[in-house]
């Protein structure tokens, strides 16, 4: 309600919206909004709920099917693993089973008692563990070739004691087979539902049970009231919101819509790193991963294509200024490397072993001249991760110095994965998280001639060293074998490694118990609580 003068000069009442009322309304609204946002935040803390921002949409939550980063981030809290990786010791620890290696080909697992499946599916027994091993073999799930390749089969030895027979000794069995590939799923539920239904309605024994999933928006997990770890989980509900854009993730964190976010835009990190942003804490740990570039080699690419010439690949590796990638793409939140073995892994050697952090363009030009290649077009594929597309731009500029004209081809995650696995590309720039702390996981799949993602580098000697490394239990001997492998990789450059990227999280500073881990797809929330 406001007043104005009529043509006679007398004051009359008007119900129209005047500038004053508009400004007053805006001011009141602004104050209300600015006070309401923290209230929402406090309300979530008071309601004992937690909101986590994923930077993509899960494709499914069934661990018998391949789940990408976002699916794994959720399933980490739905399923327990047979063995859990201890990030501090770089070793695997019993989680759902106690395990011992009776002889090189026999592992004996004792199932933890008193563990219950979600939603009334009963107590975990040796039947479920047997099912987890034998279903992989019988159905040929993705684990068969990646984590369960040495497994012949599992049998029941006595009540809640399972014997797993291998066809070859495998030193990384606890970390790879029972860790990465060892999610404990419910036999009865999986048989009842089948793979597709189970992927949308998972049943596990983890700290949270699945509640609902709205595609493109969020996944909600509720507290598992019967969780076997005492007092855990602390929060009653976790909502995973899909927020792809890092700036939107950050504003959602600052306005209280979410509580934890991974992968802030590196350009924003500095203000949180120095603690100048009240209410937000920052965690950063060295990642078990690498950014890399690789090539399809003959017969998966024409024999006369320049990247089949080892000197051209070496020239590319010399032309890369890895330090600039770390500075410009990751704002220093990464470690330069020229090889695939991160710090803390067996056989790690400080980088650079061969290729300097700042690159060596003149050496690269010499090698191009030696190869007799003056320049060529190279199509480089990458997935939809925006930081990798920027990295591609940087690498493109670096390679233009030696006459290579890079054509970047960005793809959605599904198309990219298909092209990568089927070797339908010339070159690829991507990042990979190493699935276990065993050095085998950083090398075998990529450089063995039978590896799932080798792209034509059929080096028999390297394959023998890698196989021997799996069989060998003596760390010193394994170290030598893996040094040999890395030296061969650095010499032939089937893959070119750039850096290990830190795992960075921003979260509310009144959250306790969150511990950033080095693997992007593993984010346990059972120990997180509001203070």
């Amino acid at each position, binding site marked *: 309600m406001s007043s104005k003068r009529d043509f006679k000069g007398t004051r009359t009442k008007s119900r129209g919206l005047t500038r004053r009322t508009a400004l007053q309304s805006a001011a009141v609204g602004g104050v209300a909004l600015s006070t309401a946002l923290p209230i929402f935040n406090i309300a979530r803390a008071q309601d004992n709920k937690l909101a986590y921002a994923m930077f993509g949409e899960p494709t499914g939550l069934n661990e018998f099917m391949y789940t990408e980063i976002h699916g794994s981030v959720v399933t980490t809290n739905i399923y327990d693993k047979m063995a859990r990786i201890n990030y501090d010791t770089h070793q695997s620890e019993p989680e759902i089973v106690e395990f011992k290696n009776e002889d090189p080909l026999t592992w004996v697992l004792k199932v933890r008692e008193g563990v219950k499946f979600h939603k009334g599916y009963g107590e975990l027994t040796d039947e479920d563990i047997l099912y987890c091993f034998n279903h992989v073999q019988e159905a040929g799930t993705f684990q068969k070739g990646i984590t369960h390749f040495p497994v012949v089969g599992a049998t029941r030895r006595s009540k809640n004691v399972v014997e797993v027979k291998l066809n070859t000794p495998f030193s990384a069995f606890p970390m790879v087979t029972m860790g990465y590939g060892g999610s404990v799923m419910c036999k009865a539920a999986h048989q009842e539902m089948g793979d597709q239904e189970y992927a949308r309605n998972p049943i596990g024994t983890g700290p949270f049970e699945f509640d609902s999933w709205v595609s493109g928006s969020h996944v909600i997990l509720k507290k598992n009231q019967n969780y076997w770890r005492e007092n855990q989980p602390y929060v009653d509900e976790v909502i995973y919101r899909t927020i792809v854009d890092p*700036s939107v993730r950050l504003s959602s964190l600052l306005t209280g819509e979410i509580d934890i976010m991974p992968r802030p*835009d590196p*350009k924003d990190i500095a203000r949180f790193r120095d603690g100048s942003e009240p209410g937000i804490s920052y965690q950063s740990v060295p990642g078990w991963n690498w950014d890399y570039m690789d090539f399809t080699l003959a017969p998966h690419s024409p024999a006369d294509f320049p990247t089949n010439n080892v000197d051209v690949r070496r020239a590319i590796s010399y032309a890369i200024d890895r330090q*600039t990638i770390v500075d*410009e793409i990751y704002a220093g939140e990464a470690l330069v490397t020229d090889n695939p073995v991160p710090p803390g892994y067996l056989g790690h050697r400080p980088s650079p072993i061969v290729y300097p952090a700042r690159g060596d363009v003149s050496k690269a030009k010499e090698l191009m001249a030696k190869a007799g290649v003056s320049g060529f077009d190279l199509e480089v594929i990458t997935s*939809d991760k*925006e930081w990798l*597309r*920027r990295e*591609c*731009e*940087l690498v*493109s*500029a670096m390679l*233009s110095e030696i006459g290579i004209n890079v*054509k*970047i*081809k*960005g*793809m*959605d995650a599904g*198309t990219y994965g298909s092209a990568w696995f089927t070797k339908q590309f010339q070159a690829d720039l991507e990042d990979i998280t190493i699935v276990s702390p065993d050095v085998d996981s950083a090398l075998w799949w990529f450089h063995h001639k039978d590896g799932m993602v080798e792209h034509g580098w059929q080096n028999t000697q390297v394959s023998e060293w890698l196989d021997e490394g799996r069989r060998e239990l003596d760390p010193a001997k394994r170290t030598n074998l893996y040094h040999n492998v890395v030296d061969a990789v650095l010499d032939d450059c089937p893959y070119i490694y750039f850096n290990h990227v830190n795992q960075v999280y921003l979260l509310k500073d009144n959250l306790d118990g969150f511990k950033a881990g080095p693997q992007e797809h593993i984010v346990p929330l059972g120990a997180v609580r509001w203070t």
Partner: protein
Amino acid sequence: MTVNKSPTQSPSEEGVELGSSHSPLRLAAGQFLRHRLAVVGVVLIALLSLSAVFAPYLTPYEPTKLNLQAKLSPPTWEFPLGTDHFGRDVLTRMLHGARISLLVGLGVVIIAAGIGTPLGVISGFFGGVLDNTIMRLMDALLTFPPLLLAVAIMGTLGPDTQNVILSVGLVYIPVFARLARGNTLSLRESTYVSASVALGAPNWRIIVLDVLPNIIGVIVVLVAVTFSKAVILEASLSFLGLGVQPPTASWGRDLNEARRYIEDAWWLAAFPTFMIAASVLNMNFIGDGLRDALDPRANK
């Protein structure tokens, strides 16, 4: 039989005989030149086109060359429109981005008008099953919002400049087909077409000499409007990461990257936005001028 002049030819030929100052082309040109905004549009688009063609000679920088020491520099004498997060000169990228936008606009109208117009004319002229088949197909394409359809096609073809031209061109084919068909349907009933039919003129001759010359005016207007829409659609696709791939300069792509620096480097968002808006606005002015000049119904 010696009488083979169509009635459409008669007025223009009469005009030539009576005096060239009354030729339809001259009348249209005169009408167009009276539309001041359209003339401004032509001048500015011509300047933009020339700048795009001679871009490598207009600035001393390369659009993709890194200059990390100068990254995120605000506009200065050295970098009149500032630099981006890799130190690349924004002015250089704007000029090279114009090449992409104009190329896409041109390619799109060639595909859309080149395929859509004949389809519409054939559909409207022959009618029957052929008409139904073509137009239902066109209707099916028109049910999708242009951006959604372009995204779907790009998803299949993969991101690339040529694929942007192809996908956006396909999106606008039905627009040309519908317009051409509608005009052909009314022309088919006209006296001079009936006369040509009665005189035994073959269908191709009637289409080429009687129908096409009479719909070319509205098609030209649509070309101008579609050109500007194609520029926007290309920018949208590139903004979404589906269009032109980095490091190639593209207004839409650069605008997307600028979002990261909206609080720190205003120039990164401002200039691509201005270039997109200015080119689209000027093409629309030209379209308005052409409509006034070539579409008699619009004049009324």
